[in-house]
């Protein structure tokens, strides 16, 4: 670092004005971490170098100016929007980093209901866009659990996915065009077209970059007609995850597209559905869309599930209240924090994917190993929540009591060893170690194993677009 902190801040103030350059120590502390280190943070322990400033650009040209300045001076930039990152993507591991926060760029630029697309700035909370669309009878079809908090920039940057993905797809299926700013200050706009065959699809350079290649300033997503009156929610209890995976496979292979397709194991099921799970696995499906399609989908699902005698149907109201309370907002986050502090019990998740032939093996071996190898576990379970023609995801849920260790040791003692088991077993079996939360900073040790020989392509992107290595150091690419 050639630049002193004071000069760095001066430079930023010159670009953005002093109001938009925040150096309040409390803000800097909070901005040095994300959910991954919340146990430390809750105890007032901050182990990462504090950023020099958090800055709030108001438009793309300001973003460009900040990035250019950072590139020239070798300042590490950590982009962020909604701050719901779970994998350390927001950790500032480099001394005097600058957190580039796009949340004040939050305009909904256009809802184009004729061409069925909506354009907004990166700081628009998905909930705000979705509420506005629903008022007009439309939806993005995107419904991650963090919808009330997460913003479009972050949602695109992490390749996020929502609870209705089996019908609408992940964010990569929704983004039609976008604007991104690169570290050299280049502002690139990808136009909104239905499809094109004019070379590789460059959207994918941006989607999922986790702030390591560019800063996303604007996004255009598809919109769909919102017809909740046609929704048909179906629920079942069953004995085995294996049966559940097989049912999901059949539904997908037979060509049906429920929006929700979720399979919970006993442990996770007991946690969410204490009112009916009764020590069973739980399968939940929702048919939606135009009435006739929804009805046909539901009918087919009932037929497919019906052939498996171990499945017992659950009345819809039993699932409806759960469904109505699914999303997480600021209050839930506050409640969780208070609970963790009081009980010293903390839960995290690791999401992976694999093909149908492999998924159950990964599930079984990971659960078994975590149970046996990690101390003080209070819950190890999981669910599949996003299915595809060739496979599905698994969302491992792991809770433990933090016993006999300092707040800053929690990750080393528990969280890392758990992640290691899940990631290594998954890669060994041929699956992907990251289904939708991104790589962040805590899965980078395995990124080369994840990619194998194709790592060459990924690495070349980094070298080309961020030659100075100033974009979110330690994220995706080992630091």
């Amino acid at each position, binding site marked *: 670092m050639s630049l002193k902190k004071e000069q760095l801040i001066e430079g930023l103030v010159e670009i953005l004005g002093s109001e938009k350059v925040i150096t309040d120590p409390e803000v800097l502390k909070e901005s040095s971490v994300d959910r991954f280190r919340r146990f430390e943070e809750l105890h007032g322990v901050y182990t990462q170098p504090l950023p020099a400033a958090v800055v709030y650009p108001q438009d793309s040209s300001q973003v460009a100016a900040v990035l250019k300045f950072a590139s020239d001076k070798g300042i590490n930039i950590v982009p962020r929007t909604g701050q719901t990152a779970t994998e350390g993507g927001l950790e500032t591991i480099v001394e005097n980093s600058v957190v580039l926060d796009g949340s004040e760029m939050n305009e909904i630029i256009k809802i184009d209901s004729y061409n069925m697309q909506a354009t907004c700035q990166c700081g628009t909370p998905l909930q705000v866009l979705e509420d506005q669309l629903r008022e007009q009878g439309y939806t993005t079809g995107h419904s991650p659990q963090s919808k009330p908090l997460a913003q479009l920039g972050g949602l695109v940057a992490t390749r996020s996915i929502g609870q209705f993905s089996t019908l609408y797809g992940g964010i990569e299926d929704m983004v039609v065009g976008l604007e991104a700013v690169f570290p050299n200050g280049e502002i690139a706009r990808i136009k909104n077209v239905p499809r094109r065959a004019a070379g590789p699809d460059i959207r994918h350079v941006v989607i999922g970059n986790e702030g390591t290649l560019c800063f996303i300033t604007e996004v255009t997503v598809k919109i769909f007609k919102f017809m909740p009156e046609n929704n048909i929610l179906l629920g079942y209890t069953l004995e085995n995850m294996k049966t559940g995976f097989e049912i999901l496979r059949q539904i997908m292979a037979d060509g049906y597209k429920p929006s929700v397709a979720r399979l919970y194991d006993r442990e996770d099921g007991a946690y969410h559905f204490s009112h009916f799970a009764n020590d069973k696995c739980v399968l939940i499906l929702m048919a939606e869309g135009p009435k006739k399609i929804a009805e046909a989908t539901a009918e087919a699902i009932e037929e497919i599930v019906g052939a498996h005698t171990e499945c017992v149907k659950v009345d819809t109201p039993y699932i409806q209240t759960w469904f109505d309370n699914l999303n997480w907002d600021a*209050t839930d986050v506050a*409640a969780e924090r208070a609970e963790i502090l009081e009980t010293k019990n903390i839960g995290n998740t690791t999401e992976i994917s694999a093909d149908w032939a492999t998924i159950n093996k990964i599930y079984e071996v990971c659960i078994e190993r975590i149970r046996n190898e990690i101390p003080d576990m209070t819950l190890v379970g999981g669910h599949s929540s996003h299915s595809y023609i060739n496979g599905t995801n698994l969302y491992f849920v792991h809770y433990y009591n933090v016993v006999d260790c300092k707040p800053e040791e929690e990750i080393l003692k528990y969280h890392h060893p758990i992640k290691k088991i899940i990631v290594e077993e998954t890669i060994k079996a041929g699956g992907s170690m990251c289904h939708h939360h991104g790589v962040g900073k805590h899965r980078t040790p395995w990124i080369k194993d994840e990619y194998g020989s194709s790592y060459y392509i990924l690495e070349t992107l980094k070298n080309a677009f961020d030659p100075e290595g100033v974009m979110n150091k330690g994220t995706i690419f080992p630091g």
Partner: protein
Amino acid sequence: MKYKVIINACSPSYKARAEEILSFLQEHHLTSGNAAGYNEAIVFYAEEQKAEDIINRLPFKTFKMVRIKHYQPEIILTILQELEIGSPAQIYIFPGDSSGNELAVRFAWRLNGSSLVAVEKITIQDNALVGIKKVYSGNLRGAFIFNYKPYCFSLARGMSRFEADIPVEKKNYTFHDYSSKTISLQPHDYLESPKEEENKLEKSSFIIAAGRGTGNSMEISRLQNIARELGAELGVSRPVVMNAWAPLDQLLGASGAVVSPDICLTLAVSGSPPFYYGIEKSKTIIAVNHDEHAPILKAADIVIIDDYKKVIDTLIKLAADEKGA
């Protein structure tokens, strides 16, 4: 029907509780009896209290003053039983507080009667009594038939009050000294005496109510200061006291204080029925919540749908400017 009222004057808020009962009696056209000296109140007070003060402040005409060592439900129950078992009234009305609840239920049991806690309203038909009260955490109201006499019930917390100034010479009372009474069941010794204070929230005309959405104890202490600067009292919802972000006596709601300020400003409160119970008597409810679907927004007079922090910070600035000007 003949009724009696039981008052626990050991409680610092006995006057308010008595006024609530008086108002209840009036609404149900039950006051004439007391005036005629037929129905009466039984008033328990502690030996260190001044009986004259209590007599002066009580809005009743006919009552028994029963002196005890200090408040202890077991003693009060034993004395009540002794006093009443011979010719019990048909109805016993207890105040809307925790001792009222406790005494109503236990006294009814001892006299083979029936009891109901937190009653808002009664109807009397053909010698039968029906009590109406909230159930399902305040989400619904239930009507209950009392099956056995005597019918004992406590009022719901924070019912409306009627302040009556009755000249002492019109009051008709007798003294009964039970201060040396002991019972075989002598279970308690106070290690730390209760503080003799009325709840500040009950008297305040401006209350700021903070909910779980405020996030942590630091923010609550900040709001304590802001409330002070604005001349308001800070009340909180249950999660806030359960997380120990604020002391218990700041709890609002069915299980806390029931208040009736001119203005109640709620910040980051969802407005669940047990909480709302505590503030529903407010003249004006102003709610700030960033979730447009939060139930409090329908149950408030004036609403801001936004981040409460930005709102309260602006308010405090404006108020300070006003003061400075």
